[in-house]
């Protein structure tokens, strides 16, 4: 519902005319109108950060690509959501994600329920052209209910955001930069020793891969449940 007096912007997307309110992003408008832009770090209910860059779109007249999830349309914009250049970059992003960590789908708790897997299939990534880096990561199984396997982390930051914005604990954050980035607990202490973690499990269920999982789950058993998130986000904003 638009409140009276809201400014509306008009623009085109893939040659068709659209309008948006001041609050709406390019991704919001695209999804409302059945235009499918792939995303990994975006999740309804937590703030967009444009971390994965998968939703990049082209703005005609500007050489820059912008993340649709974190960009608001401007009056008269001419946006392209899908072309060979974008498809090429999106594929490369997914391939780089696979090459930078150790994703062994066949033995993963989230096999068959993984957003990285499904986005790869959707974009036609059936092999990785880049050299695998084979980094060495430790698992953290110190928490009584949950575990984290950094081999499977794609650094989308959903767990960090949900812990801060929805649970209000801000137990998780990011350390280092670039491909050395790691999701850490508190001041990089074992998860099980965290004085701030409430054990709510929101981070586990917003994680797109098998990086965060409930203990005791075997291969392909870790399906995530996320229906709570938009509802909790609305309640946080004082909605009923």
């Amino acid at each position, binding site marked *: 519902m638009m409140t009276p007096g809201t400014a509306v912007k008009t623009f085109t997307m893939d040659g068709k005319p659209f309008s948006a309110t001041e609050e709406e992003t390019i991704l919001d408008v695209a999804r409302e109108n059945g235009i499918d832009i792939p995303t990994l770090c975006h999740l309804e209910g937590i703030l967009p950060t444009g971390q994965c860059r998968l939703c990049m779109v082209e703005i005609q007249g500007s050489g820059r690509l912008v993340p649709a999830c974190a960009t608001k349309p401007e009056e008269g914009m001419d946006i392209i959501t899908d072309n060979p250049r974008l498809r090429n970059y999106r594929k490369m992003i997914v391939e780089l994600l*696979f090459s930078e960590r*150790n*994703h*062994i*789908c*066949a*033995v*993963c708790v989230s*096999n*068959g329920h*993984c957003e990285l*897997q*499904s986005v*790869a*299939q959707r974009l*036609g990534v*059936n*092999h*990785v*052209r880049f*050299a*695998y880096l*084979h*980094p*060495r*990561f430790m698992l953290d199984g110190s928490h009584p209910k949950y575990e984290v396997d950094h081999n499977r982390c794609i650094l989308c930051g959903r767990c960090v955001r949900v812990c801060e914005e929805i649970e209000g604990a801000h137990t998780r954050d990011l350390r280092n930069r670039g491909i050395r980035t790691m999701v850490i607990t508190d001041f990089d202490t074992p998860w099980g020793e965290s004085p701030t973690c409430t054990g709510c499990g929101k981070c586990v269920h917003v994680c797109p891969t098998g990086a965060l999982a409930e203990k005791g789950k075997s291969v392909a058993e870790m399906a995530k449940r996320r229906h709570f998130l938009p509802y909790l986000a609305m309640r946080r904003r004082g909605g009923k």
Partner: protein
Amino acid sequence: MEKLKLATIWLDGCSGCHMSFLDIDERLLALSDRVELVFSPLVDTKDFPEDVDITLVEGALGTEEDLQKIRKIRERTKLLVAFGDCAVTANIPSMRNPFGREEVLKSLYVESDALNPQIPVQSLPELLPHALPLHHYVHVDVFLPGCPPAADTIYQVLSELIEGRIPDVNPLTRFGA
């Protein structure tokens, strides 16, 4: 109609993809009308023949011997199929990669063996530093992910290849399928 020459081989793999190939069941008879199996773990041929039309290669490249084999196969094959996740991504065999070859051998053959701790060197091919997918060494024509790819997928893809068409495998299978 002259039959196409089909070869299959497994390198650093578990044979699961070959089991899935056998799961084609009675449709193997339909395939046998169109192809001749000239080299495979399932037939008794010692040397990889010349002029093979299609080769399904299961498994990653884990040893020097695998490298020699894949180079020979590439030279003698028109259409090379990376058959299953190990061939496509190095999958399970690549789980040793972060630890390094020496550490893995030591852990397995020295630290875990109280009776006869020694790293085997005789009559065994040398382990590569990393287990890697086929396309990191040779050109691959078709990638068929899956652990293992389903029998239906294998049959569909093979049927297309036999007809001279390169199928789109993306709707059929994915990593870990």
